[in-house]
């Protein structure tokens, strides 16, 4: 869907994938890539790609924080880490020859 240069290191970008808005995260610090839905389920805002990523807990679970009200979601499971019911969809992602590919959920 894009090249690795399109997504800032340790940040995110939003891509249009078959009509869906997908947030792509380049977790350069860990050499990992993640993809989730761009919609924050808390207030239904297309925003997560602009959130800050980080980790939490002893296991360093990767997460993204929504810029609006700082709900945080696991990048592995999509589960909300602030105890809310809502969760987000995650997508398989791979990088080959500097090109980023998103799979179906």
């Amino acid at each position, binding site marked *: 869907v894009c090249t690795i240069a399109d997504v800032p*290191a340790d940040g995110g970008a939003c891509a249009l994938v078959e009509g869906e808005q997908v947030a792509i995260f380049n977790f350069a610090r*860990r050499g990992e890539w993640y993809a989730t839905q761009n919609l924050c389920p808390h207030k239904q805002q297309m925003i997560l790609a602009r959130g*800050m990523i*980080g*980790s939490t807990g002893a296991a360093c679970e990767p997460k993204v924080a929504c810029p609006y009200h700082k709900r945080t979601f696991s990048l592995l499971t999509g589960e909300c880490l602030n105890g809310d019911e809502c969760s987000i969809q995650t997508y398989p992602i791979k990088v080959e020859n500097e090109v980023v590919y998103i799979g179906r959920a």
Partner: protein
Amino acid sequence: MAPQGNPTVVVIGNGMVGYKFCEKLLAKSTAFNLVVFGEEPRVAYDRVHLSEYFGGKTADDLLMAPTQWYHDNGIVLHLGDAVQEIDRASQTVHARSGLVQPYDYLILATGSSAFVPDIPGVEKKGVMVYRTIEDLDEIKAYAATARSGAVLGGGLLGLEAAKALLDLGVEDAHVVEFAPRLMPRQIDAAGSAMLQSKLEALGLKIHLSKATSGIVGDGKIESLHFGDGSVLEVDMLVISAGIRPRDELAKLAGLEVGMRGGIVVNDEMQTSDSRIFAIGECALHSGMIYGLVAPGYDMAEVVVSQLLRGARAFTGYDMSSKLKLIGVDVASFGDPFIAEPHSRSIVFEDAHNGVYKRINISPDGKYLLGGVLIGDAEAYNMLLQTVNNKLVLPPHPEDLILGARGGEVDSGAGVMSLPDEALVCSCEAVTKGMICDAVTEQGITTVDAMKKCNKAGTGCGGCVPMVKDLINGTLTAQGAYIKNVLCEHFDYSRQELIDLLHINDIRSYGAALDRFGAGDGCEVCKPAVASILSGLWNELIVKQNVIQDTNDRYLANIQKGGSYSVMPRMAGGEVSPQQLMAIGRIAEKYNLYTKITGGQRIDMFGAHVSDLPDIWEELINEGFESGHAYGKSLRTVKSCVGSTWCRFGLHDSVSFAIELENRYKGIRSPHKMKSGVSGCVRECAEAQAKDFGVIATEKGWNLYVCGNGGAKPQHAQLLAADIDKETLIKYLDRFIMFYIKTADPLMRTATWLNKMDGGLAYLKNVIINDSLGICVDLEAEIELLIKNYHCEWKEVVENPELRKQFTHFVNAPKAKDPTMEFAEMRGQKMSKAW
């Protein structure tokens, strides 16, 4: 199951106390085989909160522990199987099912039954007792068709039952009491009167000094007849006239029982047979039956100690209690009735609000002996502790029930002053020390977690407010340290990190995290470090983009719906007609909503992220620069029109405001800063509500600092008076840099000053007298920041690589977010509600 050869302990009765005995024994030892017989069909449940069964709780909610708990702990449980006989000679019990169970120790926790007085007609339909979940089901079913109902008994349980009737929708609810007042065993006459008037206001009808002589009706109850000849027509009657210890099994086995019921026990809770113990409401200790759960739990603890060859004994129990009866707080503690000459009482009565408080103090005025609280029992826990721990009373003991008058109320410090051994949760025997230790050593921060940790507050729940105060008080005591650590990734305060990054010349977040942090960072430490790096070096903020909040990342304020707002600087609120027209033209072209802000400038809302660089290119071409509304930095220096036009103005406030705004613009601080300059004492610029404010005087300028509007308004305080411009700027340089270097993340100047040891006097000393000897450094540091100022938007507009970041879709840079929608209001566009 525990191995053979261990002694077998048989518990007869699976109520709250029987259950608690099992729990306490298991916590101490697994060297016993536990066998429990319960006559009710369900496992032990919380009878204290039985009335909540009508309030929506289910029978399962009320369980002390699920059935699984008994299995998991190897307890052999026989429910619905009453023990019918104890054979002391062969040490066996015989159950109704025919089961014969040998015992080494036998625990009688048979509880009590409702006492039903021998009134003619008591067998009629519609006459019920209030004791078990089954009783409640029966009451519930009958109340569905009843219009009126009465409760016989105006004690604690009776009033609970009356509440149940109200909850069940019985319109016409009565309480009938033999004594001349309600709750005669707990509260004094004046308190009873207050309680009565409150309950009557809630719709209960109270009948005192009534001896019920007959229950009349054709098969079912229709009316109550009293000794004085009066009659009360009711459809149903709930009897709650006290409890009767269940001692029939003990009596049959030849154990000693009291004249008026109850299994006689010694201080070790042993009956007249040393292998048989009795605990809870069936036990008669020193002529006393304890109808509360807390002493029952204490008795259970004593028996556990005895079985383990311990030395605990039961020595009577404080019958203090607090409860909410139909929404009215009622509490009695210590000795509520003690009077002259053994005590002097202080009474507070407020008939208007239905509050009655009485405290009894020792004749020498030193100690609290007991008291009664009606209508407002907030002070109960503290008063009870004062009695139990023999705390010396303050010089004005009336403050205990009236609150301190005139001057600061000392909130929270009270609980922390208790001794560590003070018993806070009497149901579970949890002391203040145990609660505070759980906070400091196990990191407990909530009441729920505390309940799991040491069971405090799980019994009657009366101590929960105090547990909460103790948790908060302990946290506060540690607070200085806890709050100062940035987050889980950095074990340093903001101040410490500033010095570390400065000394080590660290200029990126990654380097900071590698060197001083752990993990991969988060939304707390990233912007905090970004702010520190900006405060140290003031390098272009967009270089730090992924560690900034979205506002700093896109140099604009995100709004509902995902659009951004655009705010150019208008220093001092001054704007030319040409600039106004340019803003009008640009706002129209990009379809932006415009509004004048509180900081005297114009904000343009509803910009798509991909339009931001184009909008700013046009604004910059018209001579505007970034207004830094998105940053934690100086917002605006508001000004009044000043001496150039105003007939009252003393000096030119507009020019000074512009000078200050341009001096400090763009500098990143722990939080946003707002400022104002007023040309005279009329203060039209509201400078005293700002982080720093300046007001013109006859002799020069006054400088105020650390004010705040917002959620918690606070007036700014005078730092220096009648100073000239140059001195004022020098002080401000020092003040701002000192704030940047020492405040916590997202701490405004007002909070910063409030938390500063020594307060304003200290701050004055640092800024004016250079008491720390750092002013030369502070001035040099802020000079560097001022010198490194860039218009961030100019950098972006001129840099194609940076411009590229302003897209919604990386793979469709021209496309806008199709989900972004706007509504219309008063001829302008508006974001759509979420």
